[in-house]
Each structure stands twice: as structure tokens, then as C-alpha cells.
């Protein structure tokens, strides 16, 4: 365990922050510009994984396990979200035969 922490600490913290920020931004961009519900969903997962990476890095650098415990919770709840989200997407696919979110425009603001 200590070896892993040392290995993680081998890279400066700023690099982790930058990497996570980049992955997070890719996720946000994906959500905003893609029109396929599954791809948007994958982008959201990318955002969550950027958070996981960041939490793990912070946790290793401050020698505090709480961050890693938080990662467990994010994983478990993301799985619950995946289950519900995929069910919703499948339900829509059955009714409309498409998962393009542009057909989702019956309700207008």
C-alpha cells in the first residue's frame, strides 16, 4: 500500500489536477455537443471518473483515506445511475426507435 502511495506521489500533484481537469472538460464538451443519448451518458461517466482520479490523487498526497472511500461511493452510485439511465434509454428506444436526443423536442420551452 505504501508503495502505491509513493508511486502516486512520484508525479507532482499539479499534473493530476491538470489531467483531471482536462478529462472533466472533455466530458463536459461531450455532453454539450453530442446528440446521441448513449454518448452523452458516456461523457457523464468520463466526468465522474475524472473526479475519481482527482480524489484518489488528493487522498494519496494528504495521506488521508477518506478520499478513497468517497471514490467507492461514487462508483457504487454511478452504477445505480447507469442502471436507471440505461433503462430509461432502452424505454425511449422501444417507443421511438432512436436514441438521438433531437427527437426529444415535444416539450418546448
Amino acid at each position: 500500500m505504501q508503495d502505491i502511495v509513493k508511486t502516486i506521489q512520484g508525479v507532482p500533484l499539479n499534473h493530476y489536477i491538470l489531467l483531471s481537469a482536462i478529462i472533466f472538460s472533455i466530458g463536459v464538451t461531450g455532453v454539450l455537443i453530442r446528440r446521441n443519448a448513449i454518448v452523452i451518458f458516456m461523457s457523464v461517466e468520463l466526468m465522474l471518473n475524472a473526479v475519481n482520479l482527482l480524489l484518489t490523487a488528493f487522498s494519496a498526497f494528504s495521506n488521508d483515506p477518506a478520499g478513497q472511500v468517497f471514490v467507492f461511493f461514487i462508483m457504487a452510485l454511478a452504477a445505480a445511475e447507469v442502471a436507471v439511465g440505461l433503462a430509461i434509454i432502452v424505454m425511449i428506444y422501444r417507443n421511438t426507435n432512436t436514441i438521438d436526443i433531437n427527437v426529444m423536442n415535444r416539450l418546448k420551452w
Partner: protein
Amino acid sequence: MNALITISVLAVLVLYLGLYKANKALLPVTLLGLAVALFFTINHWNVFTGPTFNDMMSYDNFAVAFSGITITSTMLILLLSKGYFEKISDHVAEYYSIILFSLAGILVMVSYHNMTMLFIGIEIMSVSLYILAGIRKQDFASNEAALKYFLMGAFSTGFLLFGVALIYGAAHSFDLEAIKMHLETNLQTGQAISPLFYTGVVLMAVGMAFKVGAAPFHFWTPDVYEGSPSLITAFMSTVVKTAGFAAFLRLFATCFYPLHDFWMPVILVITIITLFAGNITALYQNNFKRMLAWSSISHAGYMLFAIVSLGSEASYGVFVYAIAYSAASIIAFAGLVLMQANTGSDSFDSFNGLGRKNPFLAFTLTVAMLSLAGIPLTAGFIGKFIMFSNALSSMHTWLVVLAVINAVISIFYYFRVIVAMYFKDAERAELEIPLNFKVVLAISVVATILIGIWPAFLPNVI
């Protein structure tokens, strides 16, 4: 704590009752269980000694007050649901148990003392709501509402979590008290607070604004509220909104308070945009349900006042406002459900001539609209009054001026309903109002008027 356990066990119990075809028992068991949970909640009042469960939860008076409102509102909404869910779907037990699971998440949200629990509470609540929004599987609007709510909810969770991660990086803790201590010691000793922390606060504000439907992150709200089944919309716009604000307030009022000067302008801008976006768009709606959705956005703006000004009265203000808003919304949605069941329409025109045929329903709807508009002698006025005076005492004079202008705008669209009911004639049959609707309407109207006339009736519990 007992309330939380009661509700979680109750949800599983109801699920299994449905499995063994005891559909008659569902509603009574649910209501009974919620009454027990409410009793446990009230029992917790003023016995707070400190955070419990390894400092994860803190059942202080704030938590007790907001648990009380949310449990009571849920009971009222479930009372309306007799015979409603059976028409929509075969899986009635799942309805009740998902609402209860969502309520369990809400109880966590109002009593967290650690960012982990905030996240878990929000997720338990949101995941249940995604299902509830899309529970009419064949209905296209319901599908669309579910997908939009799901994508937006997951997206905002991402922002919230990134904020949490950055704050953890700066303060090395998820504990609210520890984060506050970190801020205070840094400010006192003159050490610079890490820029990570500032970014984290902004990201968390964005995430929470998404969750409570504040502009400019409100665009999902009207669609989701319109597409979901009406009673679910009632649940979302009262209970969920109250819980969201309780969580928002607890985070910013206790934890980030030392950085007030930094985040206050951000929230201030959000508040003003929310007020104008909600009220002006609501003016142009012809659909009652959609108007309620936009008005709920504008009420989110009024509730944000508490977070902007953060006086000693902030929690009490949100408490009163949430009660007033919940009671009035429940009346409005009860009227909407009755109207949809009888005429199949939810436009303003379907209310024409209601005053002559159904004087009781028309009267309760009038009280609700007056309360939402903030006319004196109703609870809504007291709520707005506390909010505005609180903002004035913290020198936000022009914010209050803007808010008063908005309150005047809101009168126009709320009065359209009253005008339709009393001054427009239409041939219509008398609506039959079931007993459970009468009870809920009566309770809500009495609460609205009682708080309006005699605010001291509501003790300052926080």
C-alpha cells in the same frame, strides 16, 4: 435517525406488500409509517448534542424542521394519490416505495454533516426521481421528461462532485466543520486559501443551482415538470425543492460562511436571473401546469434570498417560505389533478366558470394563488416578508426592489387563474371532489391562512 431507518424499512416493506398482492394495504401502511417517522423527527427536536455516526450526520433543529416539512408534504401528496397511480401503471407498490426511497434520500440531504452524505443523499433522491418522472412507460412526454431529467441530473452531479474533490484537495477533509475550521484559521493567520477551494465553491454552487432549478441552469425544469405525472410533479416542486434548498443553505451558511464575500456576488447574479427568467416566462404560458413549473423557478429565486443575505433569520425564512410554498403548490396541483381527471385538459381555459360550480375548490385555488403571489393575510406574504426584511438588513436594497417588481409581475399570471374561475363563464359540469382531496385541500388552506394571519403560530423551531 430513527425517522430515516423507519422510512427506509417502510419502503422495502411496501415493495414486498406489492409483491404479495396486498394493494389495499399500500396507502394506509405508507401513511402510518410516515406518521411514525414524523413522530420520531419531532422527538429529536432540541436534543441535539453533536454530530453522530462518526460525524457523518447531524440531527440539529435545522434537520428536524426540514425533515418535518418534507415528511408532512409527502403525506399530503400521497393522500391525493388514492386511485391515481392505479390508473397510470400496474406497478402501484413500486410507486409508493420509490417515493419513500426518494424521501429517505431527502432526509439524508437535510441532515448531512459530511460531503459524502450530501452526495449520497442527493443521489438516492435523484435516481428515484428519474424513475418516477418516466414511470408512464408508453407516454412520450413522460419518457422525454425522464431522459432530460436524467441527463441533466447526472451532468450536474458531475459538477457537484468536481467541486467536492477540489475542496477536499484544499481542505483535506469532507467534514463540514473541519472545512469551516480550515477556512477560519487560514483567514485569521493571513494564509492564502488555495485557488482550488474557490473553484470548488463555484462548481458546487453550479451543481446545487442545477439541482434546485435556479437560472441559468433551469432549462430542464419546465420540460420535466410538464412531462411527469402531475402528482410526481407536485412531489418534485414541493418536497424536492425544499430539500434542495435545505442542503444548499446548510452547505453555504455553515460551511462556506467565512468566504461569504467571495461567493455572495455569484449567488446574487443567479438570484436575479432566476427571478426574471421565471416570472417573465410564466407570463406567456397558456398551460396551467407549465405556468406552475415556471413559477416554481421564480420561487427558487425568492428562496435564494436566504442564501444571499444569510442573516440570523435565513434558516427561519427558508423554513416559512418552504411551508407556504409547499401548501399553496399542493393545493394548485390537487386542483390540476382534478381538472385533468375530469376534463383532460390543463390549460387556463379549463378553469372557466369553476367559481360557480365548485365554490370550495375555486376558493382553495384562489387562496393558493394569492399565497403564491404573496398577497397579505396569506402564508406566502409572510414568507416573502421575512426574506425581504432579511435582505434589507444585510443592505441588499436594490435586490429587494427588483424582487418587488417581480412579485408584481407574478400577480398577473396568478390572477389569470382567479379571473378564469370567477369572471369567465363556461358550460361545465360540476367536478366531483373525492373526500381525500377535500381533506388535503382543507388542511393546506387552513395552514396557509393561519400562518398568514398569525405568523407566531409557527414557532421559531430552528
